[in-house]
């Protein structure tokens, strides 16, 4: 394979692999920027995948070709509501945020599988009839080289993920809402004395993270897994959490980190076909994505500064 061919196969693969992680990691960024640790991303993805699949199966006759889009929307809404559990526990009830997040992971899987058994009478759902499909973008895909690399055979949801990363960056760093949200994660009392509703902001942030986690999970389910079972979401949420930290709590950083994971995974699979890498024992290719991540962190990413108030529950009138 020529270098170009390799790129041409790696890029779309990296992107579709990364897309669900991007959505979810962006959710993580929102939550953590507001000061709430979100270890429950895995659970939010599970919930999103479950809702996305179930809705798709149930309403495919109603919404026709729009079914996957409506499904991810519904998954977002339901997961946002589900995230309320984390919000109530960690913001209002002052629960340890890590504890609450861990509980979210258990709860989502429990509910998802329990209801699957109730509704389908088996451990996994059927495959959806109408998942997302890739497309070539009209006009753009005709551009030489670039068209083949970036605009052919891509999921629209992947573009959505990338666009959303920029939107998130814009919201967090350019709008009053973003400024306030970040202030709440850095110094909630300062925000409070400036008349910002700390609890309100944190609720909103956690629910956004629920919506985005649900989006990530449902996109994963509707582009890759096509059904829901205990084996649908297995660690993608934790990888997204890693992307949040790897990306230094920045939306574009998280985007980069998720794409990095996508590239590394794709490379490890394409690797066996590349002359230089084909002699490398399989095991090294298999662990390469994870080792590369550690090396990248140790080598040049280094110390990342978390939002200052991350993990602290804010108690009005306390110092």
């Amino acid at each position, binding site marked *: 394979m020529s270098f170009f061919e390799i790129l041409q196969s790696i890029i779309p693969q990296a992107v579709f692999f990364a897309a669900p992680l991007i959505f979810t990691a962006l959710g993580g960024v929102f939550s953590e920027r507001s000061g709430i640790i979100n270890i429950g991303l895995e659970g939010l993805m599970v919930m999103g995948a479950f809702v996305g699949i179930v809705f798709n199966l149930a309403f495919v006759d109603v919404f026709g070709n729009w079914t996957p889009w409506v499904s991810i929307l519904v998954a977002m809404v339901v997961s946002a509501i589900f995230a309320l559990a984390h919000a109530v526990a960690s913001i209002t009830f002052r629960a340890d945020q890590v504890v609450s997040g861990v509980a979210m992971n258990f709860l989502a899987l429990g509910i998802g599988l329990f209801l699957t058994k109730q509704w389908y009478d088996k451990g996994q759902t059927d495959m959806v009839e109408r998942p997302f499909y890739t497309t070539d973008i009209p006009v753009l895909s005709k551009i030489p080289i670039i068209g083949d690399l970036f605009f052919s055979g891509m999921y629209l949801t992947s573009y959505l993920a990338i666009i959303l990363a920029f939107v998130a960056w814009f919201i967090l760093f350019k709008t009053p809402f973003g400024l306030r949200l970040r202030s709440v994660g*850095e*110094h909630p009392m300062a925000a409070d004395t400036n008349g910002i509703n700390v609890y309100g902001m944190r609720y909103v942030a956690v629910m956004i993270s629920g919506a985005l986690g649900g989006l990530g999970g449902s996109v994963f389910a509707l582009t890759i897994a096509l059904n829901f079972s205990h084996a649908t979401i297995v660690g993608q949420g934790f990888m997204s959490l890693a992307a949040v930290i790897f990306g230094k709590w920045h939306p574009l950083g998280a985007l980069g980190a998720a794409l990095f994971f996508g590239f590394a995974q794709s490379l490890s699979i394409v690797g066996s076909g590349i002359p230089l890498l084909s002699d490398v024992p399989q095991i090294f290719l298999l662990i390469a994505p994870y080792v590369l991540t550690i090396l990248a962190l140790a080598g040049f990413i280094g110390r990342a500064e978390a939002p200052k108030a991350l993990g602290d529950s804010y108690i009005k009138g306390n110092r």
Partner: protein
Amino acid sequence: MDYVIEMLNIRKEFPGVVANNNVTLQVKKGEIHALLGENGAGKSTLMNVLFGLYQPERGEIRVKGKKAAITDPNIANKLGIGMVHQHFMLVDTFTVTENIVLGSEPRKGALVDIKKAEKQVKELSERYGLNVDPKAKIRNISVGMQQRVEILKTLYRGADILILDEPTAVLTPQEIKELIGIMQSLIHEGKSIILITHKLKEIMEVCDRCTVIRKGEGIGTVDVKDTDPNELASLMVGREVTFSTEKTKSDPKEIYLSIKDLRVKDVRGVEMVKDLNLEVRAGEIVGIAGVDGNGQSELIEAITGLRKSTSGQIALHDKVISNLSPRKVTQSGISHIPQDRHKFGLVLDFPIGENMVLQTYYQEPFSKKGVMNYKNIYQKAQSLIKEYDVRTPDEYTKARALSGGNQQKAIIGREVDRSPDLIIAAQPTRGLDVGAIEFIHKKLIEERDKGRAVLLLSFELDEIMNLSDRIAVMFDGQIVADVKPEETDEQKLGLLMAGNTVEKAGAE
């Protein structure tokens, strides 16, 4: 009467504590009104009530004659009340402008109009002579600047009643002077100010009236021109207070600490200490005077092993201790009362008792062969708590729950009790009330009289003048002058600290 603020018979309780009881505070338009009281008297609480952070159990608040229910800082802002908190409410990673506009940002469509915001901040800052850079990040500017940002924050919100909670505790004399200028220009613009401070001199200098709180109870309000510091102090404490600490003449003996040609870089790699030479003898207190940021912190960090020096040498007696680990340095006979008690001095989540052995936990009788002996530890803590008058429910209470003064007394107890040869005390009385200051000063002099060397770092000229036997003026990383307190005055010291030579300072 044209009171802008009236707080009548306020009562505020916390679980188990009555922080304010029957406190009345009336502020006239255009005055600087001092609020005075010991640590924990309830000053901050009262102001937080006024600012809407706490809700009072009883009492009434009137703003400009109208009864007001201030349930939220937003309401306080709308009523024109602004507050600069004792612990700054600034987001470190934000710029000056972002901090100021946060919560009421000028907008351009959906965006923060940052250009417009910066312009507004610049204008405001020029109008009151505050001189801040709107684009600077908070973490990169000095404490004094940060405080101005806090003031700007209130002005930006259109406050005409400003609450300043202990604004001068963290400032250098120069900065205090500038702050006073700022306050006066604010009054000039028709604003009113409530000022909390433990420094009676400041009250005498700038305030019109003064309200005193003692243990949560309102004691009364006096006209400053009709009173004097002694009266204020006794009103506050409820007994007579002596001010200048009694001390005999020092009797310096052999050299304990000697520093030769020391060079130290700070975190950013900038050389902050440049060829510094200094000696401290047994039985004397050497005060380091200087404007913050002239290398004092780096010097102390280098001596105590927290920072590496790049060249030169530090010796205790005849033993070179440069670049030893903090543990080795303490073991060689140095005690250190750190500048920032929360960050360095204490593990706030440990019981106060365990904090008492933070430097000695690995030695007998507190542990033996790696096994701790908590009985001995708490016994020791108990006796130190008694000896150093640390007010705490018991030795098992978390250090976090103690007031700043009591935390500081605990640290001093711990450090002094180790019978070191050299005590390094960095800003040992920052933010403390007169009673606590008196106590700490007495202790330091006692230690000197026992033949120990004391190196005192303070930005408080009063403290330097009162306590030191010898004053080393530090400027731009060097000791530029070595003077006796009785041969100088604050005026001259100030000039030396600003980088003038001894001759020039003497001439003026």
